């Protein structure tokens, strides 16, 4: 009994376990990554220094890391909203592009507005477009039972086609191949220090994560989302309108993903280019799963990914290791965390199964 009293609360254990799993997965991934490097005849210690330490020792490097992490904070958080409700929004990439284009077009066409109004219009426009893109698969899921994995992936391809058509035919900067004109100064998110890309979008992203954490841990809406995500049937019987929640969380998810695109356009680049995203949307999925759908965890994991993303470029310049090697490392961390989380959920995992569980385990 006494031992029970001393146990830390469930949320603390969960957070501790998550951090432990991510840390162990990261170390195993680094080890496997080192083996790949040795196969290629590289020196792993030197490579890891360029990847993980070098960017953090200079102020410019830090700013670059923050700049790289910002869109990932948005997409990671966007994934969290949908995944919490057990909806797999794989359409983050498309929603991000839709938001980016809206922000860019509103940013360069609306003239003579004060910055606060211009920025508000851009934010509203991007969020509405992103939410609209997510609304389609959400309604198809709720009304017809179409699985969102198929619809969101298909929509990614459709949106990407439509966006390049729009940019090339209607919003192209004269003289450029596939990008919009620069947005006006009144629509720019100010950068902390040129040319490192880190800008006020970072602050907005961090604030959003904190708000989301509060929503999920302290509000009725958050607890309903979690209930619907964990057991849809039970949630329905307790009177929660799960269909409405699916639609709302998907639209929130799309809106936040769109802000990720807006941040790149108004903050980092100043214009929108076709195919500017190296997969921020897909990275967002990875991040929110690694962070176990915890908004504050998303923040930490996104920063780690930002570090690896900038470190990877560093590596590409300083050594002969290709940029894509870092993506292998990310993939490995992702896989190990997913396995670790599952083993943890099964209390003890495959290595320590009790005898009595074996009949159950056979199926």
């Amino acid at each position, binding site marked *: 009994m006494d031992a029970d009293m001393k146990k830390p609360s469930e949320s603390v254990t969960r957070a501790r376990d998550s951090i432990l799993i991510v840390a162990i997965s990261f170390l195993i991934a680094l080890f496997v990554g080192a083996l790949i490097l040795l196969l290629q005849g590289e020196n792993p210690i030197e490579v890891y220094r360029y990847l993980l330490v070098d960017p953090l020792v200079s102020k410019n490097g830090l700013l670059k890391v923050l700049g790289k992490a910002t869109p990932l904070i948005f997409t990671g958080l966007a994934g969290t909203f949908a995944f919490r409700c057990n909806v797999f929004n794989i359409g983050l990439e498309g929603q991000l592009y839709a938001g980016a284009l809206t922000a860019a077009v509103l940013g360069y066409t609306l003239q003579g507005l004060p910055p606060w109004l211009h920025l508000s219009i851009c934010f509203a426009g991007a969020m509405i477009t992103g939410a609209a893109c997510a609304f389609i698969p959400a309604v198809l899921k709720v009304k017809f039972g179409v699985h969102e994995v198929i619809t969101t992936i298909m929509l990614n391809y459709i949106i990407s086609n439509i966006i390049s058509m729009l940019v090339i035919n209607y919003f192209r900067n004269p003289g450029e191949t596939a990008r919009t004109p620069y947005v006006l100064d009144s629509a720019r998110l100010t950068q902390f220090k040129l040319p490192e890309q880190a800008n006020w979008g970072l602050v907005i992203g961090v604030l959003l994560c904190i708000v989301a954490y509060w929503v999920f841990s302290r509000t009725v809406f958050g607890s309903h989302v979690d209930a619907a995500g964990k057991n849809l049937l039970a949630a329905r019987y307790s009177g929660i309108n799960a269909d409405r929640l699916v639609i709302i969380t998907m639209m929130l998810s799309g809106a936040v993903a769109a802000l990720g695109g807006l941040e790149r356009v108004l903050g980092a680049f100043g214009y929108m280019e076709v195919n500017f995203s190296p997969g921020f949307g897909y990275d967002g999925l990875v991040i929110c799963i690694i962070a176990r759908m915890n908004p504050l965890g998303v923040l930490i994991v996104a920063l780690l990914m930002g570090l690896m993303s900038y470190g990877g470029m560093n590596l590409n310049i300083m050594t002969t290791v290709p940029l894509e090697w870092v*993506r*292998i490392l990310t993939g490995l961390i992702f896989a190990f965390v997913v396995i670790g989380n599952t083993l943890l959920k099964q209390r003890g995992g495959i290595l320590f199964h009790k005898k009595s569980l074996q009949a159950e385990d056979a199926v």
Partner: protein
Amino acid sequence: MTISITSILARMFASATPIALAGIGGLFGERSGISNIGLEGTMLLSALAAAVGTHFSNDPWIGLTCGMVCGLLVSLLHAFLSITVKVDQIVIGLVINIFSANASVYLLSVFFRNKGASPTITKLPYVSIPFLRDIPGMSEIFSNISVLTILAVVIMLIAQFLLYQTRFGLHVISAGQNAKAAFVMGVKVKRTQYLSVLIGGLCCGLAGSYLSISYLNMFVKNMVSGRGFIAIAAILIGRYNPVGVMLASLFFGLADASQIALQGTVSIPNEFVQSIPYVLTILVVTVNEWRTRKLSPV
């Protein structure tokens, strides 16, 4: 450019082949109760493996073998994680898709020192089918057809037989419908599921290889471009039945063929035309699910 019906039909078969191969293989996993949304990634890595094998041996048949082995290995990983470790099936599919997309670009740069595409390689042979090619008007289709397209038809027949006429097929279906009941009746559920997922992997290997050493003559970054997910749509629309999946694949093949034929010949932008297969996928799956809902008792 004039559009002839036979050339569209020929393209229909060419575009339907990878979807049919992946779909017919993938339906075994679905039938046994293991969803695999990682078909896309499995195809991508297999396409690369086939290209690498062909490039270094200069023999497309060795490339095909590499593609099949790669498909088997990736699906073995999927089977281990979803059946033994019991990771959420959709999450593990995501892991495989994202990891494959990342790994293929990395391996492309390791093997070919190029980040966009492999050098051109030898294709698998295209053959001419006696009798069928003599049907008036059909010569364009049947005198120049990929061996893998023919194999897809053969695999459909084998799959139909395997699923409905053999003890193994019965085990697959029973494992998917009620795993516990099947276990009590003496079905080795896990072994059946492993085999089903591996069949899917083997067929995905063929589908991926088809893309890089038969449809095209090189590996191109992200060359699967949604076909793995369209194959899942084909499984749903084909009602988890090999002949049905083949018919659904032909439908998607036709959509892709008309898309290619329409490009540049109509006054709507190419980007819209290219989206036709994806839009159709959403529409057809929606209608299909809606009908299933209406038919099934609540």
